[in-house]
């Protein structure tokens, strides 16, 4: 493994090791952590372990800066939740907070130092219109203006076109399920909603198993994995936190099968364990890995791609391998997202509009 990747993983696994890093090692860790969106996390770890004052001034400066930005992001997220709460007074409808907002609202350890630019929520499909209308009445506006984009989101995506509040410049994504309806994986949103736990009179968060399954399916079944190390750190933290109760692992396995997400979970457990030392019991890992692809060569290709793409290459050290892995994963992400004909049509429209010079 690359030296810089190894160093970053070391301090993510064991923050106390920050204390012994040389200036040269810090140069690599700081660059890579920033490229992965993990600088705030490294800073939060330094603070939690009481290391900030012992670090060299140049390193401390960068971490203090990242700490302030993460604190502000958190305050902004809380304020945005407050504004959504205010815009949706009245009917007794459960709004589930997703990802960063959920981690902050539920007070989970992975919220530490995490910077979120958007707020993501989920409601049942028949409440979509109500929520969109309520937010627009309170001043949120459409971001995507073209008819094709609007229609594309509404027909084929698991979320509505994003809304932005012009005064606060904050974006909200409203989901009705966690993966595009055309995706290979089709977890039933009703099941996710049913188990979501209310945290106040308006907002809910997913059950423990579902928080992990959502993050895992986002990383391994929807996105392109590029720079996805931050998501894997979230997953590792969730495993540490929820794994404290002994019945979590069997419940997790049963739930992943119920929702049809056994394979994304197998990837999540494998890489969180291998790269970030997640405390996954041996039997849980073995059981989950039965869902990995067959035959094994497919597994090896995926393994090579994931390891190369999860952590972006250094600016001054661009090996061709990472770019190839990134491309393969990009193709895979679309392959999983939609059937071939639909993909061809979608990419065709995008290419056509690019040649016409309008924004795709």
């Amino acid at each position, binding site marked *: 493994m690359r030296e810089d990747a190894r160093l970053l993983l070391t301090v993510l696994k064991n923050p106390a090791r920050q204390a012994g890093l040389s*200036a*040269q090692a*810090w*140069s690599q860790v*700081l*660059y890579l952590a*920033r*490229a992965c969106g993990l600088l705030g996390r490294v800073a939060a770890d330094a603070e939690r372990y009481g290391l900030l004052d012992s670090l*060299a*001034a*140049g*390193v401390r*400066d*960068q971490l*203090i*800066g*990242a700490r*302030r*930005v993460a*604190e*502000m992001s958190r*305050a902004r997220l809380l304020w945005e939740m407050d504004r959504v709460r205010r815009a949706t007074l009245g009917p007794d409808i459960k709004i589930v907070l997703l990802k960063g907002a959920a981690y902050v609202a539920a007070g989970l350890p992975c919220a530490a130092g995490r910077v979120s630019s958007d707020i993501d929520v989920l409601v049942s499909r028949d409440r979509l219109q109500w929520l969109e209308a309520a937010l627009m009445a309170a001043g949120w506006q459409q971001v995507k203006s073209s008819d094709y984009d609007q229609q594309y989101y509404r027909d084929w995506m698991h979320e509505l076109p994003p809304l932005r509040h012009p005064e606060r410049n904050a974006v909200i994504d409203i989901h009705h399920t966690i993966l595009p309806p055309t995706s290979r994986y089709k977890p039933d949103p009703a099941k996710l909603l049913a188990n979501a736990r209310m945290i106040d009179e308006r907002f809910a968060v997913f059950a423990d198993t579902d928080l992990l399954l959502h993050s895992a399916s986002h990383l391994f079944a929807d996105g392109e994995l590029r*720079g996805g190390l931050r998501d894997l750190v979230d997953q590792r933290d969730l495993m540490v936190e929820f794994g404290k109760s002994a019945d979590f692992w069997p419940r997790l396995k049963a739930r992943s099968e119920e929702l049809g997400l056994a394979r994304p979970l197998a990837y999540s457990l494998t890489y969180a364990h291998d790269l970030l030392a997640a405390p996954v019991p041996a039997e849980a890992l073995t059981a989950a890995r039965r869902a990995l692809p067959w035959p094994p060569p497919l597994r090896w290709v995926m393994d090579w791609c994931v390891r190369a793409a999860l952590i*972006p290459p*250094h*600016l*001054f050290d661009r090996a061709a391998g990472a770019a190839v892995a990134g491309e393969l994963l990009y193709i895979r992400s679309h392959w999983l997202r939609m059937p071939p004909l639909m993909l061809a049509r979608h990419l065709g429209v995008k290419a056509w509009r690019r040649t016409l010079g309008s924004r795709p």
Partner: protein
Amino acid sequence: MGRDVRDITRSPEHFRALRREGLRFRVGPFVAHVRTPFTRLRHDFLETYEGFPLASEAEATTFHLQVRATAPLRRWLRPKLMADAGFAHTPFVPLPGDLGMLAMEMGLNWLVATSSDRFLMFHAGLVERGGKAILMPGASGIGKSTLTAGLSLSGWRFFTDEFGLLDPDTLAFHPHPRPISLKNESIPVLAERVMPERLGRPLHETPKGTIRYLKPPRDALERMADTAPASLILYPNYNPNAKSQVIELPKHEAFAMVRGAAVNCDRLGETAFRALAALTDRCRSFRLIYRSLDQAIRMVSDLMEHAP
């Protein structure tokens, strides 16, 4: 990099290093690591950055930047280059091959603007005399760089013509002495005040017209670790047709004005608010309308006499 060499020099060694492992040098509180294969840019860079202190192995890098060809063939064939910091969502644009210095400076500016949230950052020029700093915020093109350069050639110590870096805890400003970017009409005004070798070659037809980079004065580089608190905040406005004027701003207006010049205010939240309030409290703020550089320098000297 030889271990005995402490400053950037116009040596074959540094010329080579820029293409291979890159050069790591200190600018105020930051360590920049830059690299580029372009020959002309490497000449320009060493000329402009000659005398900047190289970073020691005990100092971590703050940011990395390379200026690279937009496509492999573009290094030789109708050269086109752009800055690359390695992150997604950067605003860098492709530029013709002989504008490498502009790509480098814009790249470094973007990195400072987006990754120094340890400081409250002002889009401003900054000079110091007798331990008192003067902050001169202002949009591009109203004479901020010219006045900053003019003052730093008349007994003031040059801090920056672009980024005022305020430590929100100590309220001291940190120098960030980079090459001063002179544009269009301001070039002849300063060319007659400095030795010709301190001015880089003109870069024509840039998105901002003609640009020449002025090397920061020697004492600015030697004292780049010496911070200073601000006493004055001036809003310079060069207008050859107006009556010259000094207008003091009441505190509430001064606060709103200086808040508008703070680049990363929204990312710092309460920290920024408290620092802005304290800064407004300790400084006097003036609007400065002037007809010539010499006149402006005299006005600033007078104001400095009564600075708190």
